[in-house]
Every structure is written in structure tokens, then in C-alpha cells.
């Protein structure tokens, strides 16, 4: 992945297996280019807002979409979502929650915070693959939209 090209998808996921499976599924569905993986909530915030997250320095990057795991080390997914949707600079970035549970409270909280979509990671990989395929379609639609 060339460094000079802007990141288009930010995958925030701490489980390496899930990272590989997600990347594999994305690649199979031809949305593999310019994906940045970060391993916890803090890294995700640093990536988007820069090290000094309050100033918005030159290191900040704006992905076109965020795939966000709910349960993350350090700063959890809901907090990352809250920060993204609470900041006018990042509010318009679509965020898709990935979670391994169908816990209702998680879903309700996420929608309260303004999540754009929600995918329950099924144990059945086929279902996950299907979810990613639909995500790919979604992504292509998003990519055509004049966001920048």
C-alpha cells in the first residue's frame, strides 16, 4: 500500500484473526485497496485526529469509511464513534460498527451516537463474507458520492 495515497478505509479491529478474515473477505469482494488497519481505539483516534488530537495537525487523515469493532482495548468502539460523530470535521465520515454480539444495548447505543450501519459478525464465515460483499456494494456507492 503506497504511503502517499490517502487511506480510503480504516479498519479498527484488535483480533488478528478477524483482521485477516475481514481483509480476506474484502479482497475477495474487490475492495482491497488503500485499507489501513489499526489495533485499538487510541490508534484509531490518533490516526484520524493526529497525535495531538485536539489541534488537528498535519498528521491527521480523513478515511472515506471506518469499519469499527465495538470491543477494543484502551478506548472502546462506542467512545471512538462518539468522538467521530461529535466532531464537525469527521461527522460526515460513514462509520460501520462490527460486533460479535447481538446485544441489544450495544445496537441502541450505537444508533444513538449516529452510526451509519451495523454488522453482527457471525460465526458462520459465509454470512460474514456476505456481509462484506454488501459492504463492498455500499462502499462503491459511497465512493461515487462527491464526499471530498
Amino acid at each position: 500500500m503506497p504511503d502517499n495515497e490517502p487511506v480510503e478505509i480504516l479498519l479498527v479491529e484488535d483480533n488478528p484473526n478477524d483482521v485477516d478474515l475481514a481483509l480476506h473477505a474484502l479482497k475477495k469482494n474487490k475492495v482491497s485497496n488503500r485499507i489501513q488497519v489499526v489495533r485499538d481505539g487510541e490508534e484509531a483516534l490518533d490516526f484520524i485526529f493526529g497525535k495531538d488530537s485536539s489541534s488537528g495537525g498535519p498528521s491527521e487523515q480523513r478515511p472515506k469509511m471506518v469499519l469499527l469493532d465495538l470491543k477494543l482495548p484502551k478506548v472502546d468502539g462506542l467512545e471512538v464513534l462518539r468522538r467521530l460523530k461529535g466532531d464537525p470535521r469527521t461527522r460526515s465520515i460513514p462509520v460501520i460498527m462490527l460486533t460479535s454480539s447481538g446485544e441489544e444495548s450495544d445496537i441502541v447505543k450505537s444508533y444513538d451516537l449516529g452510526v451509519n450501519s451495523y454488522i453482527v459478525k457471525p460465526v458462520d464465515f459465509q454470512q460474514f463474507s456476505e456481509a462484506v460483499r454488501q459492504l463492498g456494494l455500499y462502499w462503491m456507492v459511497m465512493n461515487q458520492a462527491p464526499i471530498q
Partner: protein
Amino acid sequence: MTFKALSDELANLLVKDNKKNWPVIVAIFLIILFPVIFLAALTYFKSRQEATAFAVSQRQAIAYLAATTLKEKLDRLTDISVSLASRVRFRQLVSEGKWEEAVQILKSVPKDFPFFDRLFLSGPDGTLWADTPALLDVRGKNFASRDWYRGVSQNWKPYVSEVYQRAAQPRYNVFAVAAPITAEDGSITGILVLQVKVDFLLQWTKNIEVGPNGFVVIVDRRGKIAAHPKFPPQGELVTYSKIPAVQKSPREDKGAAHLSNLLGREEELVTYQSVPVYGWRAIVEQPVSDAFAARDENLKRLLTAYALIGLISCALAYLILRFITERRQSENEIRNLNKNLADRSLEVEAANKELEAFSYSVSHDLRAPLRAVDGFSRILLDEHASQLSEQGQGFLRRVRENAVNMGQLIDDLLTFSRLSRQPLKKQNVVTADLARQVLDELKQEQNGRRIDASVADLPQCEGDPKLLKQVFVNLLSNAFKYTRKREVARIEVGSENINGETVYFVKDNGAGFNMKYADKLFAVFQRLHRSEEYEGTGVGLAIVQRVVHRHGGRIWAEAAIDKGASFYFTLDGVNAHA
């Protein structure tokens, strides 16, 4: 201050550290008793005073009446003596010294007036010259030493003498009324003496009603007994000094006194009234115990009444204090229980929170490795199948199936634990609509099967619709699952009224089960069929039972192998009219 506030204040005083505060309780008893005792004492003494005054004044009135009557009698005797002594012929005979002839004129007087014992004439010097009825041995004797002579000769006015024993036999008690006899020129020529029998004259005193053991005594001006029921007038003349009532009553007054008899018997109430002019006295005597018997009886009743009032107010005070203290004590107990309960529920809440956190992380973390197992197996199967033998591919499929099964197990277990913890949100539920909705949803998944399913008009119920839906989902899923091998699956949802209780049921014509194992049916992870035959985790019926129990209902099943199964359940709070 309201009654409640007052009683709370009292309770604060009465109960300290959940124990009865005895000094305060005793003080309150005294405060309640004091007015009763005070009032009782006041009323007692007041009543006693009044009753005493009444009894005394009654007896004083008797003494007054006796004195007045006596005065009238003595006045009359004096009048008689004066009128006898002023007869012209009589006066003339006396002045001429014809004593015998003079006395003959008055001969009929003792016969006309029976209280006259006899009557006699004496000279101005007190020498007796004539008498009727005649007693020969007294004529010519000088009686100047007698009281009647001294009395009448003092001013030559009519005079009532003191009581004395008559000189002649039988010697009974008499007194004399002496009147001077005058000549025409006013000089004293003689004395007319009427001797009066005291018992005859004072007969009436015996008839005065004084009350039990009470009597009237008449004494003369020197205190000698004229009439006394205990001392007959024929006997020895009793001197006044022996009778305290006489001795101690002032001569010229009226009044009352409590006197102790010299003989040391009982105390007596004595009232007296002196007779004006004559100086005699009427005395009313009665033992104190008799005189005040009525008073004491009334006072006794009064005291009894007050004792009763005191007792009743004590009892009332006791009941009120007991009520207040016990209520406070039970309030304290309830408060302690509530506190314990609050502590307990805090603990339970904490435990629940912990459990929630636990199952949350189980649901996330336990599934992650399963996802990896399934995902990578899937990639192997999809993209590297050519490098694996047929058997190897089969094993990989088995790996995937098991991963999926375990995921299902985790899901079911989480559902089960969530249902146990979630608070019940009860509301009115149209049970029939709920069952139909579930049936329709499940029917859509049964591709190509012949199904004959019906839902009767079920009574509505009070319950948590989400949890009740889970009940129908699980029961109907089972019904569909175990009728899979039937050509036509028959499923019936209905209700019966058994002893006024609504019983819902779900019946099928499926595989059924042996009733021998019915007790294992509702336990978690307990299955009556092998999973190769009928898939499942063994949590569904456990969930159903948990939901039914949380609604306060019961669940049971009837079945036979290959004859279908019927599941019955009740829910508390069923609206029988709906």
C-alpha cells in the same frame, strides 16, 4: 399538632434504642393518674364535709325542735301556775290563812292535768301548809332550802325548779313550778307549787326520731337529767357530771361536738340547744358510726367509683402506651428489615451487574475464536480444496459445523441468562395475536411442508410481550421440529379453563417423548433426542420454563413416543373476562 405527630413524639420518648424507656413510662402513668387521684381526694373531702355538715345540721334541727317544744311546755306550766295563783277566791282564802279551803279549790287540777304529780301551798317562808293529794307527814315542814323556794322567793316571780326526787315515797323524779300568791295590796301571802312528773311531761322526747341508736336528752339548768332513755326517772338522780354530752355542752348556746363517752365506748355526735329563759337544754346524742352511716356509705361508693375510674384510666393509658411503643418497635423492626433488604438488593444488583459484564464478555470473546476456526476452515475449503483429500474436506466441514453449533450454544445460553435477569415489563397482551404472529413467522421457514396449524381464541393476559413471544417461538419451533417426519404436521395452540385458571397449550402430532423422562424436559442442556435426529442445544424449554415461572405460572407436558406432545402452561394475572 396532629394525632400522628403527637403519637410519634410520644413514641420517641417511650422507646429508646428499640427498648421501652421505663422511667418515662412510669412518669406518664403518674401524670395520667395524678389528676384522677387529685380529683378523687378533692371530691372525697368536699363530699365528706358536706355530708358531715348535713348530718350535723339535721341533728341540730332536732335539738332545736326539742328545745322549742320544751320551752312551750314550760311556758304553759308557768301560765297554768300563774292563772291558778291569781284566782280571786283562792287568793282571799290564802291571805286569810285558810290553807285547807284554798287547796280544796285546786283539788281537781291533778286529775285534769295528769302530768301534775301533786300541788301544794306554802307560806312565804317555805313552810308547807296544804297539799293535794294530801300527804300528812309533810305538812308543817319547811322547804325553804328547796330550789323552787329559793327561785321563786328571789324576785317573787314564777319559777321552774331544777329536777329533784320528791320527798314522799315512791321517790321518782319531779320538778316544781312555783308561783307567788299575793294579797290585794300586793304583799306575798304564800306560794303555789305544782309538782310535775318529768317522765310524764317529757314522754314526747322518746318519740323523736333521731336515727339508729340516737336519742334526745333533756337536762335542767344545772345539767341534771330530766329525760334520758337510759336513766329511768324513778331511779337515782343521775348527776350531769357523769354524762359527757351534758358536761361538755355549753349552757347557753347551741352547737355540735364529737365526744368520747367516759366509759370509753364509741365516739358520739352530740348536738345541743339551750332553752331560753329556763336554761334547760335539749341534747341529741348518736354514735358517730350511726350518725354518719349514710355519709360513709356514700363516700365508700364515691371512692369505689373513683377507684374504678383510676383503674380504667390506667388500663387505657397502658393500652395507649403499649400500642404506641409496640407500633414504634415494629416500625423499627420494619425499618431494620427494609435496610437489610436494601442492602441485599444492592448486593443483588451488584451481582447482576457483574453477571451482565461476564456474559457480555463471554458473548464477545468466546465467539471470536469460533469465528476464526470457522472462517479459516471456510477459506481452506473454498480456496485450497484441491490440496485436500475428500476425507480431509469432510473433516473440515465437521470442524465448521461444530464451530457453528458452539456459536448457537453460546447464543442460547446468553438468551437464557438474559431472560432471567431482565426486569418484567408487564402489560396487557393479546395472546392469540402474539401466537398467530409467531406461527406465521415460523411457517415461512418450513419450505414445502404440509402443515395444519391453528390458533384458537385465547384469553388475553398480563405479561411481558417480548418474553411471552419467546415462549411461543420456542414451543412452536419445537412443534415444527418434531413433526418434521410427519406427512401432515398438526399443530394446535389453544386454551382451557381448569378450576377457574386459564391454561394455554401447544399440541403437536410429532415424535413425542417418553413420559419417564418428563422431569428432565425443562432443565438446561437436557435433551430427549439425539442431535443427529433433531438438532438443538437443550436450552429452548429451559427458557420457556424460566419465563413462565417469572410470570408466576406453571408449565408441564404430556406426551407419548410417536404420539405427539402437548405443552401446558399458566400465567399469573390472567384476565378471565377478556
